[in-house]
């Protein structure tokens, strides 16, 4: 691209200036100071981008106006710059373009620095290394495409590095800077979470602990219960101690009484001592015989009384017998053994009644016989009398009369019956008359005859009966006499039975009989009494035997020697027995007392379940009493019991305390378990972590962004520099070498990329690490070399303006430079603004193709080398 024509209507010193047919190669514009070279440089500098509204450009007279005709890739463009507005670009077809398009979109700064740098500006280069922003930018521009932006890189990178550092420190350690609070939150929450995670462990532990504690509690409770029971038992023991003492004493006594060695107990499991067994047997014996003993005891007095009575009775009977004997002797002195004689008299054969009857009969019979004999005499007399009477009476027989009557009636009936066959009424009448006759006859004769007859008959009968009577009486008399004889015989017999020898026995037999009978009765009675008494004795004997048996039986179980009953009289026997019995009763009473007390105690023990449980607990035996006794046995005295009780009470209190502390622990555990099982610590921790993490993530992102910016920038820069070294500095080194006549051989960026500096090496191997170490001329050479290298790289080529930038070069270097520029001009349109004639001279020596313009007071005039040399030389 190059300017073909330029029309400057209004720009600083320039007024209606035309530069036509400008060479597309080397354009040398020569002018003295204040001719307008600097203004022209500025004009070209701002033409593609528009004019800045400040005092860095010369003022317009009226309004800035510049027109330029450009050619780029064989196309023509018109560029018009009017005032401060952006330049307008039209192509041949009047189509609008932008200046940037024409100028390769090269940014303004780069264009300005690369293509239109002024001497003054170059003079500032020495300050590059001092780190001023502007210089740094220049430095980057020199390094190539985009370096104008890159110049900001170190600073920007710093900025973002600082940003990042604020966020997360240099290393992005989560525990620092703005990460820190969130990091800490996370850590705290994690701690919380880890704690909470332990909750499961704790939960299991606590559950285990709870179970153990509950078991322990149960044990404690059992223990307490046990102690309570023991305490209770001891209390019971204490309350019953005296009783027990008594019982034990009784037992001891009883044991003494009990027959030891004999063992009837078949229970082999019972391994207790013999005495015990003896006692047990004794007791069981007494138990079984208790009623008997009691009965015997109750009967003892009665029995004694009975024995006494018996004895008395016996005496009495004997006395009575003696009386009776003497009485009987007196009754019948002939009896040697009166009682035997009396016994012999079989009074049974004589019935008193009968005897009396016989006696009465005898008397009656005697009387009757007399009477009958008199009656018979009377009757003989009467019969004589009646016979006399009968002789006086005569009379017809009544039967004759009756016979005659019947005959007449029979005649009448015959007559009447004839009337049935003969029909004569008279016959009937006749019959009736006969009948009536019969009747009258009968009635007139029959009655009187009959009365007479009867009277006679009566007397006859009376005589007859009296005779009969007499006969009867005679018979009766005979019977009576027989009877009397019989009776007399009986009575005689009685007298014989009664042992009466006297003849006149009839006189006294009845009284004798009475006496005998009475004696006999008495004797009999006495015998009965005696028998009864003997019965009684038997009974007593029996009783005593029972008693004796009892004693005998008891003796087996008792240690006491009982006088086993030898044959003795009743009294002695009874006395012995009673004596023994009393001993037995004593033992029995003892046992009764023992048993009763024991059973009383047993009753007490059994009556309460509490006691039973307690005892059962203690020994696990069924026999509560034995348990209790064994408990009793554990203590020597009541005081010992009380002592133990006190101990137990202390223990109990101790265990109770332990229990309550365990219960407390269990409650705590339960609460903790409840807490744990509903704990939302983990969730809370998670939420906290989550929240902190969210915030931290934002920070981290932000950190990453900042760090990335920093990273990319640095990378970008180093890459660009690398690229610059390769693509720009290598050619630039060559150029510098040529300019400096091979003095400087190598040009490099410094090792530290962050410094905007160059490293220069001479042919002798001398190394300048900073441009500051270079002379001004060398510095300018260096930058020119870099610029040229850079310009060569930008394609398509753009017009280049050099404003006396070679002024500090010595001649040989200037010549070298001119050569290089001339070469460059084959590709680029190059404006050289100079007031130095030797530069024009060098150029003219080097090339023929340069175009020369004379500039004088803002006026351009096409010239040639000689004229221009002249103009500049003077």
């Amino acid at each position, binding site marked *: 691209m190059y300017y073909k024509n330029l029309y400057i209507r209004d720009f600083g010193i320039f007024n209606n200036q035309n530069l036509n047919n400008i060479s597309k190669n080397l354009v040398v514009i020569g002018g003295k100071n204040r001719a307008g070279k600097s203004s022209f440089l500025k004009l070209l500098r701002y033409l593609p981008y528009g004019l800045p509204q400040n005092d860095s450009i010369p003022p317009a007279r009226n309004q800035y106006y510049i027109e330029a005709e450009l050619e780029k890739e064989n196309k023509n463009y018109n560029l018009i710059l009017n005032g401060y507005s952006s330049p307008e670009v039209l192509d041949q077809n009047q189509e609008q373009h932008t200046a940037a398009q024409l100028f390769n979109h090269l940014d303004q700064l780069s264009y300005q620095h690369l293509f239109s740098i002024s001497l003054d500006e170059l003079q500032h280069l020495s300050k590059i290394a001092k780190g001023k922003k502007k210089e740094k930018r220049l430095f980057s521009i020199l390094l190539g495409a985009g370096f104008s932006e890159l110049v900001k890189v170190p600073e920007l990178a710093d900025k973002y590095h600082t940003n990042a550092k604020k966020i997360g420190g240099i290393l992005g350690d989560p525990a620092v800077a703005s990460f820190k609070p969130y990091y800490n939150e996370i850590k705290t929450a994690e701690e919380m979470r880890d704690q909470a995670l332990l909750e499961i462990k704790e939960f299991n532990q606590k559950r285990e602990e709870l179970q153990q504690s509950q078991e322990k509690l149960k044990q404690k409770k059992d223990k307490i219960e046990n102690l309570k029971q023991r305490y209770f038992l001891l209390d019971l023991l204490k309350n019953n101690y005296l009783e027990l003492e008594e019982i034990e004493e009784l037992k001891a006594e009883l044991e003494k009484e009990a027959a030891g060695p004999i063992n009837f107990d078949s229970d082999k499991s019972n391994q207790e001592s013999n005495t015990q067994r003896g006692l047990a047997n004794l007791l069981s014996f007494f138990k079984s015989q208790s009623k008997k003993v009691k009965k015997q005891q109750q009967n003892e007095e009665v029995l004694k009384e009975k024995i006494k009575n018996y004895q008395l009775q016996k005496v009495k009977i004997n006395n009575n017998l003696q009386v009776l004997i003497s009485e009987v002797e007196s009754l019948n002195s002939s009896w040697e053994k009166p009682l035997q004689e009396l016994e012999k008299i079989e009074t049974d054969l004589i019935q008193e009644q009968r005897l009396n009857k016989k006696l009465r009969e005898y008397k009656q019979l005697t009387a009757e016989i007399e009477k009958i004999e008199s009656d018979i005499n009377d009757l003989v007399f009467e019969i004589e009398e009646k016979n006399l009477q009968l002789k006086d009476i005569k009379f017809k027989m009544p039967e004759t009369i009756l016979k005659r009557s019947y005959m007449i009636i029979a005649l009448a009936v015959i007559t009447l019956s004839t009337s049935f066959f003969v029909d004569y009424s008279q016959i009937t009448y006749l019959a009736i008359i006969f009948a009536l006759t019969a009747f009258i006859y009968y009635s007139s004769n029959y009655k009187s005859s009959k009365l007479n007859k009867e009277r006679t008959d009566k007397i006859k009968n009376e005589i007859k009966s009296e005779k009969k009577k007499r006969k009867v009486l005679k018979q009766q008399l005979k019977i009576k006499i027989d009877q009397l004889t019989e009776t007399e015989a009986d009575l005689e017999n009685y007298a014989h039975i009664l042992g009466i020898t006297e003849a006149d026995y009839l006189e006294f037999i009845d009284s004798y009989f009475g006496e005998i009978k009475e004696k006999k009765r008495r004797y009999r009675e006495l015998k009965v009494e005696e028998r009864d008494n003997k019965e009684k004795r038997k009974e007593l004997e029996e009783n005593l035997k029972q008693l004796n048996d009892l004693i005998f039986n008891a003796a087996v179980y008792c240690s006491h020697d009982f006088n086993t009953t030898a044959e003795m009289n009743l009294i002695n026997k009874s006395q012995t027995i009673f004596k023994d019995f009393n001993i037995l009763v004593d033992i029995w009473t003892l046992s009764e007392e023992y048993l009763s007390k024991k059973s009383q105690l047993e009753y007490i023990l059994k009556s309460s379940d509490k006691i039973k449980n307690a005892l059962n607990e203690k020994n696990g035996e069924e026999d509560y009493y034995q348990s209790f006794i064994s408990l009793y046995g554990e203590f020597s005295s009541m005081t010992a019991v009380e002592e133990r009780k006190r101990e137990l009470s202390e223990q109990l209190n101790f265990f109770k305390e332990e229990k309550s502390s365990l219960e407390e622990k269990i409650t705590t555990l339960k609460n903790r378990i409840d807490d744990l099982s509903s704990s939302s610590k983990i969730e809370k921790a998670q939420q906290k972590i989550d929240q902190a993490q969210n915030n931290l993530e934002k920070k981290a992102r932000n950190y990453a962004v900042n760090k990335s910016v920093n990273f*990319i920038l640095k990378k970008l820069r180093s890459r660009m520099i690398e690229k610059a070294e390769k693509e720009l500095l290598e050619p630039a080194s060559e150029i510098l070498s040529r300019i400096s006549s091979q003095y400087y051989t190598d040009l490099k960026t410094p090792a530290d990329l962050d410094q905007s500096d160059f490293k220069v090496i001479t042919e002798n191997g001398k190394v300048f690490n900073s441009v500051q170490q270079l002379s001004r001329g060398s510095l300018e050479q260096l930058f020119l070399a870099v610029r040229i290298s850079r310009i060569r790289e930008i394609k398509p080529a753009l017009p280049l303006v050099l404003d006396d930038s070679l002024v500090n070069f010595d001649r040989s270097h200037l010549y070298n430079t001119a050569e290089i520029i001339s070469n460059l001009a084959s590709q680029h349109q190059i404006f050289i603004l100079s007031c130095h004639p030797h530069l024009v001279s060098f150029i003219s020596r080097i090339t023929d193709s340069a175009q020369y313009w004379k500039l004088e007071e803002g006026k351009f005039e096409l010239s040639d080398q000689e004229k221009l040399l002249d103009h500049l030389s003077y």
Partner: protein
Amino acid sequence: MVQSIKFIHTADIHLAKELSSNSLSNHKLENIFSRAGKNAFENLVKLAVSEAVDFIIIAGDLYDREARSIKSSRFFLKQAQQLENQGIEIFVISGNHDPAGVEKEVFELPANVHYFSSQEVEIYEYHKGGKLAARILGQSYRQKFESRTMYNFYTAPDQSVFNIALLHTALSKDNNRYVPVNKNELLSKTEINYWALGHLHQYQRVNDKPAVYFPGTLQAHNISEQGRKGAILVEVDSNLNTKEKFMSLAPVIFKEIKLDLEAKKLNNITELQQLIAKKINNLAEKIRLQNRNQKYKIEAVITRLVIKGRTELHYYIESDREELEETLLEEFRARQLNESPFIWLHSILFRTANSLSNLDELKDNNPLYQNIQDLIDEILTDEELNQELLAEWGQIWQGDQNPEDRDNHRFYADQKLQQEILTDAEKIIITELIGDED
């Protein structure tokens, strides 16, 4: 001909793990979010009951390593009891989050829960109507990491019934931590009809026949687990043909809403607010529509709003990012509180940059721009450079690639995130370097 069966395949339940909702204050939210995992599980139980499935298989990570609580154990116990009442069996392997699970169970589990041993592969036989109907093979993790190949020993005696294999794996041969195995290796075990996998939180059909599935997590827990979550309902007919259906069960889903302000001419924050409101309403409407055909409704969506792009508002945003964020969060949270389903703004992420008027021109013409682009591409693709960048990002970004093994205070930048960050950085650089003309 065998009995047809029906079962549910689920995994990665992480019981009692909290949802990353970024909310602490509101009770309603806490209720919804804290209960989400449980609700999802309850939905699973409801599904099992309503579908009258034979059993549920849980392919690991029933519990979360970092959220294991008594409450969660009790919750599972209750659910298991409920299933037991319905005659539904549960087969569980423990994964990297709950290794040797059964030993750590706080409570004694009902008889319908079958934990697989961590010592060796076990085979449970499932009987139906007195006949063998399926075999379930599985092995639990012994520890947090499980480098045993395991799958090798998943050998069913025959193919007479449906054989299901439970395996908790990242399904990556290189991953020595989570049972290194690849798909082809699984497929080499020809007698297995269904590989019930777990570990990856995203539903994934790895293979069709034999079926190899990841059911994904039952309830997502953070924004990296976007979209619907649930379990797989599998029906097996008498010819051992399967029909798998993904059932959405999670009551809360995560979703990132992107708002690009690049082309939008916004003059003030109010306009931004309107834009956000519109976005949120659209999302809510979409969820409402989806819920209509859904048995297990979505109650809430936890969203992260990413606002990006070059915008004129960047100036305001940049001036007090945190306060603006706070204000916007507060506003939209409050607005949504009584909506159903409600969209909960988890966070707002500003990734904006200053607008550049000559951006297009710069893109076209500035070689530096291109250089930057190239450099970023290179950073993303060149491993060495990428490592260099990540090293720059510092320790905080040195988190383990696997989220499960990552410290809470470290992060991991995947490709996407790196790109996002670099994009943001790029914008800044462009603005700073090229953008401003002075």
